[in-house]
């Protein structure tokens, strides 16, 4: 038939109507909502049986008990373990975010060898033979003592195994990163005799006089401190915080006593002076020139003099001293921030002396002078002549900071090979440029890092470590805790990548080296080694997951040696030049040492600390001439300069610039690295004579409009 306009029109309308009433439209609309609910790129987690497994977190010396929730053996959440003697259910954000470390973009997925300036993956066999070969050369060259070790986080059988390896190898050059643990041991050795350390019974003290100790900033065993601090209110105990800045601890304290940075020792000695003057001290077994000390402090640290130095009113000093002496169970706590970096022995000793004078040694709620005889029982290491010779040798220098300087100073290599375990000195030590230089001076650096961090990048071979969720290890509690608890870290999942427990890597190395070194490490696996050396606490460890090694106040009252303080050592001064003082800030939400923070942790950081890729520094508005809140500024120290943003904070002492630790990482993790600056790039070390501690509590600086 002929299709005229009208019938064509009819057809058209008919078709339209037909489609309109057909289910096509409805079906498509319905489907569309279903598509939008399962985009292929939106993950759908697999469901399954829920189970819980206990372990211990070894990210920091805190060693908290954790409970890992698993779905079909797939870990999905880390939580604090209730009734665990350290943290009783409490847990910090780094521990909770622990699972993110497993899949961290910066993880070292297999052994690596540096080729030129880039790394190439190699097999474990290659890696072991490569390293053992190099080490053999060093040893055969007749200088076994030129193998060094830098390790972080003292204690534990893996660190012990490293030391044992170096003993058998013939080198005394074992260095630990600065830690509260070591600072306290050194203090105890100075005042109460070698082999001791100090624990603070915060759980029972009724007055905690904290000389800047960041009790809720990650000091000591963080969660134990959190628990003690939180229970404080119910016990009607008091916390006085002495600090230049209103830190979280200061904000949470019953009283905040602002003090000029780096003058804590002077205040502590000033308080001692008052106690002695007013005869408020408790005599004890004091020797090493107690009278000389008494004379010196009352002369040099009279309240007026101390006021001039610290900025704390003389009257307040007297009141404070009296309050401390009159309190039932007071305790004084040293260690600014986390008590690891930028500390000095004078301060630690002065504060501990305060405890001694107040008769708080080994008293409930006081300071415990503990002698933690190691629970580890290694069999006698078998030593050959080289080893014997090495064992005789003196350590090249005292501390890791001195080591770095020596490496840089001397023309010919001080160390021919260096192990780095559980530490990131190229990021954590002050003046990182200096540290990286020093690493270049070492011909052969072996890193046992789990992540491609600053130090791993500066090494020649990486023997990647499994994370704490992938390995078995004993972890004793560190710094400042009044009890010693050894926890057992258990593998929650098989290694995700081609990594090993550093203990196993070390045993493989020893076997490859052969001879007495192999004999000294004659275990098939590290797990086997641990079971043997953990000796009598192994059963407890394997059954309960932990063992309490020491608890409660030790017997008797230790003597106190005053010779160090009686000699009135000079207080450390800040280096550099400028009208302001830059001090690092410990922020619980950011890891200051190894390993670096997780994406989750960084996400929680305030925009008043990190803004985009800019670090934000704190200053008192009074100090901020010509600067704008949230505006840009240039921060200059003798070490370098940085473009920063400024945060006006009434809670920081005028004249002081606060910069957070833990930012400015330079490795390959877009969620964590490339944000802000590393405060350690801007601060240079100031070595305290004698102790060898890097005592730089800050550095002089200028801040000007960008």
């Amino acid at each position, binding site marked *: 038939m002929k299709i005229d306009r009208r019938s064509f029109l009819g057809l058209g309308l008919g078709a339209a109507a037909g489609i309109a009433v057909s289910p096509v439209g409805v079906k498509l609309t319905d489907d569309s909502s279903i598509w*939008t*609910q399962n*985009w292929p*790129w*939106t*993950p*759908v*987690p*697999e*469901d399954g049986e*829920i189970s819980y497994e206990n372990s211990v977190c070894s990210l920091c010396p805190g060693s908290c008990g954790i409970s890992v929730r698993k*779905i079909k053996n*797939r*870990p999905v*959440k*880390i*939580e604090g373990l209730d009734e665990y003697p350290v943290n009783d*259910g*409490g*847990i*910090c*954000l780094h521990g*909770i*975010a622990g*699972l*993110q470390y*497993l*899949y*961290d*973009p910066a993880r070292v997925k297999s052994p690596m060898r540096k080729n030129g300036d880039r790394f190439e993956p190699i097999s474990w066999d290659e890696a072991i033979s490569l390293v053992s070969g190099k080490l053999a050369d060093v040893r055969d060259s007749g200088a076994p003592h030129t193998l060094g070790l830098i390790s972080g986080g003292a204690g534990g059988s893996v660190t012990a195994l490293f030391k044992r390896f170096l003993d058998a190898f013939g080198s005394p050059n074992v260095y630990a990163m600065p830690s509260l643990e070591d600072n306290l041991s050194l203090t105890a050795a100075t005042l109460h005799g070698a082999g001791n350390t100090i624990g603070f019974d915060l759980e029972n003290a009724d007055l905690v006089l904290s000389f800047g100790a960041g009790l*809720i900033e990650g000091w000591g065993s963080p*969660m134990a401190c*959190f628990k003690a*601090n*939180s229970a404080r*209110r119910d016990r009607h105990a008091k916390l006085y915080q002495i600090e230049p800045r209103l830190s*979280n601890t200061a*904000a*949470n304290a019953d009283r905040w006593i*602002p003090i000029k940075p780096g003058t804590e020792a002077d205040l502590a000695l000033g308080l001692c002076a008052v106690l002695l003057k007013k005869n408020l001290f408790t005599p004890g077994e004091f020797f090493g020139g107690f009278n000389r000390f008494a004379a010196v402090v009352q002369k040099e640290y009279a309240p007026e003099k101390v006021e001039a130095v610290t900025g704390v009113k003389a009257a307040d000093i007297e009141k404070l001293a009296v309050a401390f002496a009159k309190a039932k169970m007071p305790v004084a706590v040293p260690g600014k921030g986390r008590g690891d970096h930028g500390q000095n022995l004078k301060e630690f000793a002065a504060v501990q002396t305060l405890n001694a004078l107040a008769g708080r040694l080994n008293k409930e709620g006081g300071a415990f002078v503990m002698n933690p005889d190691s629970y580890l029982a290694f069999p006698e290491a078998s030593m050959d002549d080289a080893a014997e010779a090495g064992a005789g040798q003196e350590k090249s220098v005292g501390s890791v900071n001195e080591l770095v300087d020596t490496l840089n100073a001397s023309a010919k290599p001080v160390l021919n090979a260096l192990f780095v375990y559980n530490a990131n000195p190229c990021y954590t030590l002050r003046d990182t440029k200096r540290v990286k230089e020093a690493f270049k001076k070492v011909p052969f650096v072996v890193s046992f890092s789990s992540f491609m961090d600053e130090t791993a990048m500066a090494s020649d071979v990486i023997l990647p470590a499994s994370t704490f969720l992938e390995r078995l290890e004993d972890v004793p509690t560190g710094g400042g805790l009044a009890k010693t608890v050894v926890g057992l870290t258990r593998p929650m999942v098989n290694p995700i990548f081609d990594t090993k427990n550093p203990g196993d890597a070390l045993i493989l190395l020893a076997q490859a080296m052969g001879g007495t070194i192999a004999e000294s490490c004659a275990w098939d696996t590290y797990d086997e080694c641990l079971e043997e050396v953990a000796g009598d606490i192994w059963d407890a460890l394997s059954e309960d997951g932990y063992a309490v090694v020491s608890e409660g106040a030790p017997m008797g009252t230790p003597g106190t040696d005053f010779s160090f303080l009686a000699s009135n050592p000079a207080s450390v001064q800040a280096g550099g030049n400028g009208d302001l003082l830059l001090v690092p800030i410990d922020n*619980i*939400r950011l890891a200051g040492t190894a390993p670096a923070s997780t*994406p*989750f*942790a*960084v*996400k*929680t950081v305030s*925009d*008043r600390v*990190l803004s985009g*890729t800019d670090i934000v520094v704190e200053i*008192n*508005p*009074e100090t901020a001439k010509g600067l704008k809140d949230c505006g840009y500024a240039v921060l200059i120290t003798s070490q370098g300069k940085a473009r920063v943003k400024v945060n006006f904070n*009434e*809670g920081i*002492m005028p004249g002081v610039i606060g910069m957070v630790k833990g930012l400015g990482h330079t490795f390959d993790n*877009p*969620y964590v690295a490339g944000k802000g600056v590393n405060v350690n790039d801007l601060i240079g070390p100031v070595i305290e004579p004698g102790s060898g501690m890097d005592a730089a509590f800050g550095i002089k600086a200028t801040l000007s409009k960008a």
Partner: protein
Amino acid sequence: MIQNTKAHKFGMVIDLDKCTGCGSCMVSCMAENNVPFKEDESRKKDSITWMRVYKLTNGKSFPDTEVVYMPRPCQHCSGLGDHGHSPCVSVCPATATDYGYDTGIVSQIYTRCFGCRYCMGACPYHARYFNWWDPTWPEGMESYLSPNVSPRMRGVVEKCSFCYHRYQLAREKAYVEEREIEENEYQTACTTACPADAIIFGDLNNPAHQVHQIVKPDPHPDPRNHKVVGKSRNPKVFRLLERLGTNTKVYYMSEREWVRKAGDSYLDGEWDEVKNHHGSSSSHG
């Protein structure tokens, strides 16, 4: 809908004097609820944090400055007169967010939400977050995601659910064992994580629960402001923006007056007349 007598009314009291601002609650929440993260999370106005910790200061200058941290989950408003018409639920055009009369929990149905964001405008606490981006995880990291909370898709609103999935698990267990759920069986992820024990969670309707004992909620409307129901009889306890009549189920506690005052807006002189007024009962005589 009628509120049956056995209905729960889950709520929280946060002790701001104990809170240390450590951030454990924030991360515990993120890990528990599959909250995604981006490379730059410093722009807090598009950073998904169901639990956000605010920093408050007393505004005084050095050295009299004081600081307190205020964790802010979804406040799970019961709405004007406690009828379940919370600011967000009443405005959602697609019934994608709902008020559970048996739990007092404000839910969010991600697959129902079409992203109009009206609820976000209506919420004065900024407790609601929009997925501006597709949630993505670094290679392999999605293997830690929990099946109990479905990951969201781009273009929908999400928020704190008081870890509702934990309630479901506890309820199923209790049901099988033919009993009521215990106080400690249902606790939110932020509560269990808090190392300072600053967060206390439970059933505000249950006198046996700690949260009820601390808050002592007043069942009667506040004589001064009839929009307000459930005002705390505890002089140290307050709620955020209580005067608006949102009737939140997250209470805050502090010894410090300036902190309690910071929870709401007051005209000049108003604070001094209301600060000692705590619910109808306490106002009698």
